[in-house]
């Protein structure tokens, strides 16, 4: 059975996102940026390991990275402004 690695990557990403959501939800985590950070991490791990093909520019990677850095910047600013 041959499975295209791009489709495999999407399946693995869906599993990782589900596991991350269930784990954090059951741990009582309510901060959205923690969830987004884990989704971003999952996406880049899948991208690095399975190298899925993309139509043109990978806008999702750019959007996730930008959101992740915005969340980190917000947390840093929060700590500094205390």
């Amino acid at each position, binding site marked *: 059975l041959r499975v295209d690695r791009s489709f495999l990557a999407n399946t693995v990403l869906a599993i990782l*996102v589900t596991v*991350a959501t269930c784990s954090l939800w059951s741990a009582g985590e309510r901060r*959205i940026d923690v969830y*987004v950070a884990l989704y971003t991490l999952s996406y880049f791990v899948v991208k690095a390991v399975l190298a899925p093909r*993309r139509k043109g520019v990978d806008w999702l990677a750019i959007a996730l990275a930008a959101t992740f850095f915005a969340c980190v910047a917000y947390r840093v600013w929060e700590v500094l402004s205390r």
Partner: protein
Amino acid sequence: MLYQRAGVVIAVSSSILAVATYLLLGPSPLLALWIGLAVVGASMALTPPEPRPVNVSKLVLDAFENVERVLEALGARGSAVLVPTDSGVYAVIGDSVDPSRLSSEDVRSRLVLRAGRSLAVSLKVPLPEVESESPCEALGETVVDRLGIATGLECVEDESRGELSARFHNAKAVGFSRMSEVAGPIHGVIAAALLARIRGAPARVASWRRVGSDLEVRAEVLRS
């Protein structure tokens, strides 16, 4: 395209639900769930349609068979140099071909051409289009994903020396004896042709050997 449309539907509906959840409940794990689904949907939508490896494989292998027939009919001997041109990569086959003396126009337009002191045969290498700009990635996409003539690939490119070393796992034996004699196995020809195309310089199959069911190939750029 159904897969990509399903991705768009999942991404859009999850985004709408995320906004509605945020407005009604504020930040909550349910909102995170919708964001996660939107990420998966967007990833599906960005995946290009699956290439049809069986059809492409058949077309390319048939084209290689024709190359083999021409080589056999001409009794071609010597070695092959893969020359990149504007319209594709050509295999110039003859005794001691000097790539620096070849005219791109002759390579493109003539079947038999003068290469140094002897005559050479110029044949276009049938290659499927690949987007990658890395020879190793392009080789994996061509040989493993599209043609299916190997189940896996280990590939290293030494860009400074202009060399590419590849090991094809379970390399399918494709019986083109004359082509193997003058240019190397089909896997090697494709590796050298991709190296020539991406690096924009003539290349050749430097060496190859069978290791059980695997095939090891070394291709190199010919610097003038």
